[in-house]
């Protein structure tokens, strides 16, 4: 196992001597002491208890779990959590070494604080059709051309169907009809349907 602590501006370090991502390792630890948040990513073979073990480790090193997201992707455990860990990444790395010896890839990355709660026009992008290369890139490139920022995305491959659902925030007053027309133009040749609908929030 190769563990590296990078310079403050270094990208995440890959496992030394192996250009292929390998399960059962720390893919990288980037230490930036002026950055208060740590992103912990765990990917690999699923089993009961992984979430409990990772979050217990965060708690034991005095960290406070903030946002997190976990799901199974084609049966693989995939979790990213953001934690405020005043002690920095090293104690957490030490605490997660045992987990990284399993069929799990663990990485820790220091992050700056970012603002939350974007403003704009919220819309839901739905794409579905027979699977083929280019569906996600084509749909999301169209969204990006209109300044749409994807804030949540999930794709699922069934036996024959491919489905994409994304939450997108566009600049206020964006013309969704125009984007829908362009989505039809670029997606229909791929044999998939795409639609963009307003998904605004109602305050009660």
């Amino acid at each position: 196992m190769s563990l590296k602590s990078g310079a403050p501006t270094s990208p995440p370090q890959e496992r030394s001597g192996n250009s292929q991502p390998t399960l059962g390792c720390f893919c990288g630890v980037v230490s930036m002491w002026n950055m208060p948040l740590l992103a912990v990513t765990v990917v690999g073979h699923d089993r009961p208890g992984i979430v409990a073990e990772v979050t217990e480790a965060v708690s034991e090193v005095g960290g406070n779990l903030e946002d997190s997201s976990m799901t199974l992707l084609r049966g693989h455990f995939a979790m990213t959590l953001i934690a405020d860990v005043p002690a920095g990444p090293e104690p957490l790395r030490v605490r997660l070494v045992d987990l990284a010896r399993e069929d799990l890839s663990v990485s820790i990355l220091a992050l700056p604080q970012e603002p939350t709660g974007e403003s704009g026009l919220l819309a839901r992008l739905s794409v579905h059709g027979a699977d083929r290369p280019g569906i996600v890139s084509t749909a999301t490139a169209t969204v990006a051309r209109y300044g749409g920022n994807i804030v949540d995305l999930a794709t699922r491959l069934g036996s024959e169907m491919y489905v994409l659902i994304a939450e997108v925030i566009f600049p206020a007053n964006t013309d969704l009809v125009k984007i829908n027309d362009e989505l039809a133009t670029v997606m229909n040749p791929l044999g998939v349907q795409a639609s963009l609908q307003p998904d605004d929030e109602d305050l009660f």
Partner: protein
Amino acid sequence: MATRSFDVDQFGTGAVLPVVTAPNPMLSTSCQPVSPTAAKTIQLAADLVATMAVSPGCVGLAANQLGADARVFSLDVTGHPKARTVHGALVLVNPEVVSASRKERAREGCMSVPDFTGDVRRASRLIIAGYLPGTGEPVEIETNAFEARAFLHELDHIDGLLFLDRVAGAHAIHPRQTYQ
């Protein structure tokens, strides 16, 4: 179907009160039934209407959001673009669902949960019964779409439930957008 209008002006001047926000335990506690004709209930109705009226975008407010342990809420979806049936401004005491059907999913925010919104499935066809404050007249209201959702959101409040308790899945909680 109730078609009469509910004259909220009869309650006189209510006080604009601060809205309780989570994690205040008031919001997680089921409220107690109250007498619809009691002076305290009538004053609460006026306070709910007054506070709702000065809260931008707010279409409903439950008693425990103002710190009162009472099965009372106010509601007014007038002018909302998603509303179909609209009963105007009203206050309902000791409400109960008579029937609810045709669940639909939509994203909700709440004055008591300022940081988040959530996708919630709720009935889009609803019959709800209750009593009017002041007269104590029993009413049964049949409604749909957005007004039905608003009724159910407020009813949840007085049952000690937030929309967070009903979100449709682990990825159905979102940071609330900032309004400009």
